[in-house]
């Protein structure tokens, strides 16, 4: 006997499709979660209208992190843009660097050395691990399981050490530069990386036992916030959110870039994209990234040039053209649309962050009829990073 909630008090739809919410009737309560709210992924806000314990309408408010990157880049030279692009998305900045660099290289007709491709792939996979580790902690934290966040942040710090060794910075690496990468791997990097990977694997084993096999976690996460496969196209859903619904939508496989054609892997998929499956897909994707890093470190050439010769970057002009470069980041399809007009500055840069559709259109749809307790977990499970929405 399934429990049927009584929804007779819920607001009716008006003629123009919006809900007829009469706050004065006392049946509904308006709740703001954010921007100052610990359950929100970063600096954004959701405006909920609740009836009883369930949400009848949710609206996402973004723009709190807007710095106007796309405008700022229009008044910076191509090389000056390179250090600011990584600031667009904080938890996984390398994709900005890669997509921007690749777009510039394509329009300027630069050939990037083979080794640089391998190092770029390595960096991107390392960034993906960081991002997923952060997510796992956040997802468990949204259900009140703080200890997972402690463990994953601990191993994330180890991965940041590897980043620091390679690029000199913990968060903003500024390593993938148009024309290649800044440097080759340091001496003995592979061995230290292996130690880190083993540590992460062992922690993930703990996480699997404590989080994924936990009865309470299953009770909270299974069957909540299901994304039906037919929503994928209409809402522009990509990445693990789509893969959890059973569609193997992975740019690394679909339209391979960098050295992914030479690596041996299968896209991770799940069934029924609920919170639990999405978390599980991300955990397995994390294991896949560990495997990919091992493959890269074995297969990559050991020496060679990492940088192609650039023209004088102070007077670098790129002929008129437009292109779109995409990559599979931890949240889905990340892309840069770059338009040049023959001058020394980009005419227009548009960043396509996967959170853009996930956290606005998709979230507003999924949150309807969700329990208030599940709203934070639902938002986290879509793995949204606000800075890439508003840039």
């Amino acid at each position, binding site marked *: 006997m399934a429990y049927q909630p009584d929804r007779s008090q819920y607001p009716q739809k008006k003629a123009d499709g919006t809900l007829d919410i009469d706050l004065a009737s006392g049946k509904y309560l308006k709740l703001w979660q954010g*921007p*100052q*709210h*610990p359950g929100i992924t*970063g*600096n954004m806000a959701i405006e909920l209208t609740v009836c009883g314990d369930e949400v009848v309408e949710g609206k996402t408010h973004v*723009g*709190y*992190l*807007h*710095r*106007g990157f796309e*405008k*700022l880049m229009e*008044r910076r030279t191509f090389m000056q843009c390179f*250090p*600011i692009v990584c*600031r667009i998305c*904080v*938890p996984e900045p390398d994709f900005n660097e890669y997509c921007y660099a690749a777009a510039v290289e394509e329009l300027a007709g630069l050939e990037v050395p083979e080794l640089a491709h391998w190092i770029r792939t390595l960096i991107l996979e390392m960034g993906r691990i960081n991002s997923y580790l*952060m997510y796992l*902690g956040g997802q468990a934290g949204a259900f009140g399981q703080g200890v997972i*966040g*402690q463990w994953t*942040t*601990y191993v*994330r*710090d180890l991965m*940041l050490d590897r980043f620091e060794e390679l690029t000199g910075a*913990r*968060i*903003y690496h500024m390593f993938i530069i148009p024309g290649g990468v800044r440097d080759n791997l340091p001496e003995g990097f592979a061995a230290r990386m292996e130690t880190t990977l083993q540590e992460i694997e062992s922690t993930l084993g703990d996480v699997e036992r404590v989080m994924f096999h936990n009865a309470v976690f299953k009770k909270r996460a299974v069957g909540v916030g299901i994304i039906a496969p037919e929503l994928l196209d209409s809402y522009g859903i990509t990445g693990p959110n789509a893969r959890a619904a059973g569609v193997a939508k992975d740019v690394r496989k679909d339209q391979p870039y960098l050295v992914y054609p030479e690596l041996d892997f299968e896209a991770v998929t799940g069934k029924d994209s609920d919170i639990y499956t999405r978390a599980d897909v991300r955990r397995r994707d994390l294991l896949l990234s560990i495997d990919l890093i091992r493959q890269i470190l074995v297969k990559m050439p050991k020496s060679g040039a990492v940088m192609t010769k650039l023209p004088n970057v102070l007077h670098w002009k790129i002929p008129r053209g437009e292109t779109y470069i995409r990559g599979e980041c931890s949240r889905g399809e990340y892309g840069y649309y770059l338009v040049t007009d023959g001058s020394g500055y980009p005419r227009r840069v548009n960043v396509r962050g996967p959170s853009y559709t996930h956290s606005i259109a998709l979230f507003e749809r999924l949150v309807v009829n969700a329990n208030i307790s599940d709203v934070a977990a639902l938002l986290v499970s879509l793995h949204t990073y606000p*800075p890439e929405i508003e840039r």
Partner: protein
Amino acid sequence: MKEELLKRMVKGPDGVEFEVEPLRDYYCEAGPTVQTPAYTAIIEKLFNWARSESIWILGFGTGCGAIEMRPLMTPRFDAYRYGIQWRPTPRQANLFVISGYLSTKTLKRVIRSYEQMQSPKYVVGLGSCTINGGMYWDSYNTIKRLDDYLPVDLYIAGCMPRPEALLAGFEDLKKLIRAGKAEGANQYAENFEWYKANQKSVIHDWDMPDYNW
């Protein structure tokens, strides 16, 4: 009956006048006041020591610096050792860490949150973007100098500052508090007009009370 408990007419931020009955509903248009240390010096010293050893950070990640707050609270850096915790509500927090650039839209929320905190309260600006705009010096949507809008006790430079820098910064803040120099809330009350004028000059659609606690 005390005068402040009698019925009175007030003018709301939207210009509408309405009657307030203080015994039944609570409305206050009074601005912040300077809070003097009311006790003898030794007690104030003791309190200052307690304040410095128990810093509760407001859980509001206003910018990208927030990403280093999590490592700060986890095994590698473990700021709990120094009496630093985060609190989810401004009422219980003492320290507002402005973690990076502030867009004007966030600034509005930051002011509201700051004014709801109880004095003494401290503000730490993180990253070069709170100091002089940093990378976003020519952006139309981010402020450049945080101390124009809120009284800042301490800046931690960097883009972004490492957790070690944060810990060192907090140690410096503790020294300031112990020395009785971290009186940002009083500074805000004394120069209230100036701060409000600055805030209103960048927030073009000011649609909230002048002071909301």
